[in-house]
């Protein structure tokens, strides 16, 4: 009783907070957001700061503290994968269409179905999108403010977690692709240039924060 009362006024020492973050992350399979940690820790705690120390503490260890989007998780070190045959989950075999669609969503997000089709030069089957949605690798983003207000797709935290990415900014080769202009959605010449302005708000949004 007195302890809780006390904590209302004084946040626990940083070392204690680090222990708490450690316990919370160990206890969860899913990444945990700072906000969730804050809600569970005593008032006045600063999980973000505790995480800096915790992350350092686990450097080079058998498990690591990793950032997944705006959440945090503990994951085993990839070099120890060979120990984990027992835990290995059968990876779902994805069609070429699904893999390419996933990559296009990741690199071009937020992206409309029409844009995916434009890039692949072929219609995207309903099943492909459904499969990626079902795997929770992509989700609906905001509607595009263009005629028809088409839905857009973006990748999920689950996707980042599964592919070991801190954020969509860390996608392999993203910078090079951007620099080469390959993430632009250039319209066919003569087909109206409005689209380009719209497109610039694509992955560029990711770089702003």
């Amino acid at each position, binding site marked *: 009783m007195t302890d809780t009362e006390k904590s209302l006024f004084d946040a626990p020492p940083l070392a204690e907070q680090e222990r708490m973050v450690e316990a919370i992350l160990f206890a969860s399979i899913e990444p945990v957001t700072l906000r969730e940690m804050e809600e569970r820790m005593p008032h006045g705690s600063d999980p973000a700061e505790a995480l800096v120390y915790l992350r350092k503490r686990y450097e080079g260890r058998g498990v690591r503290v990793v950032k997944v989007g705006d959440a945090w998780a503990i994951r085993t070190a990839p070099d120890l*994968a060979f120990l984990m045959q027992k835990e290995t989950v059968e990876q779902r075999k994805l069609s070429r269409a699904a893999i390419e669609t996933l990559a296009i969503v990741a690199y071009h997000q937020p992206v409309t179905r029409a844009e995916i089709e434009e890039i692949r030069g072929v*219609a995207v089957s309903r099943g492909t999108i459904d499969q990626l949605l079902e795997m929770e690798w992509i989700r609906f983003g905001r509607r595009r403010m263009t005629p028809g207000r088409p839905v857009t797709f973006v990748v999920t935290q689950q996707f980042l977690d599964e592919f070991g990415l801190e954020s969509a900014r860390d996608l392999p080769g993203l910078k090079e692709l951007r620099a080469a202009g390959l993430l632009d959605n250039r319209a066919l010449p003569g087909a109206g240039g409005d689209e380009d302005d719209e497109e610039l708000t694509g992955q560029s949004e990711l770089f702003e924060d």
Partner: protein
Amino acid sequence: MGRMSEESHLFEAMSVSERLQAEALIVDVDGFEGPLDLLLSLSRTQKVDLRKISVLQLAEQYLLFVERAKALRIELAADYLVMAAWLAFLKSKLLLPPEPGADGPSAEDLAAHLAFQLERLAAMRDAAAKLMARDRLGRDFFARGVSEEIERVRKVQYSASLLDLMQAYARIRTRDEFRPYAFDRKDVFTMEQALDRMRGLVGFAMEWTDLVSYLPEGWGLDPKRRRTATAATFAASLELAKQGQIEIRQSETFAPISIRAAQPRNRND
């Protein structure tokens, strides 16, 4: 002219192995994910950087592919044929000198766009491969095997106010009297009373009249009595309007409410 000779030159440049490859492509037509994918595969035979690709040569290869498919009576999906038509158009544009003053994008722009599309598709393929080659959760690195369930402790906080308390007590005390709880009706003007009163009056209301003027005498001064009389009169006029005996109007929210006797022609509507 120069372009024509270039074209025939390209045709001859196609080696036997390339021709065989093109034939193999036909057999494999189901393996392509649309015309752009096919174009990308064809472009590989040029063995150059996609940025330096000869779109004209590519168009030739594609058209040749479509021709062969037709010869082998392979049914091509509509989008392959649309692409073929577009490439035939592009080819003619590339070969002919530009018409002076012609509108629309130049052949070079169209060719450059096609090259861009191919390069972008190739880049996405490459990116997808890199993505899939990454260390993966559940294959190369692993999550916690068992999660400690977060126990949800539901704490119910009951609340009651002093008013609740007093009202409860009042309720009990009234119940003690073994009679149902009843309002003191001295200062209550009922809708029935209001209806009776208005039925006698509305017949004379040919013009719009403020509802307030229908309040019974002696009820307009004391706020409490005024409130109950107003409410009852208003409810009664709604009832009369429903019965078609009067019309009721209010120009805007909170504006005075006026009523008048129903007009005969309205009743006929």
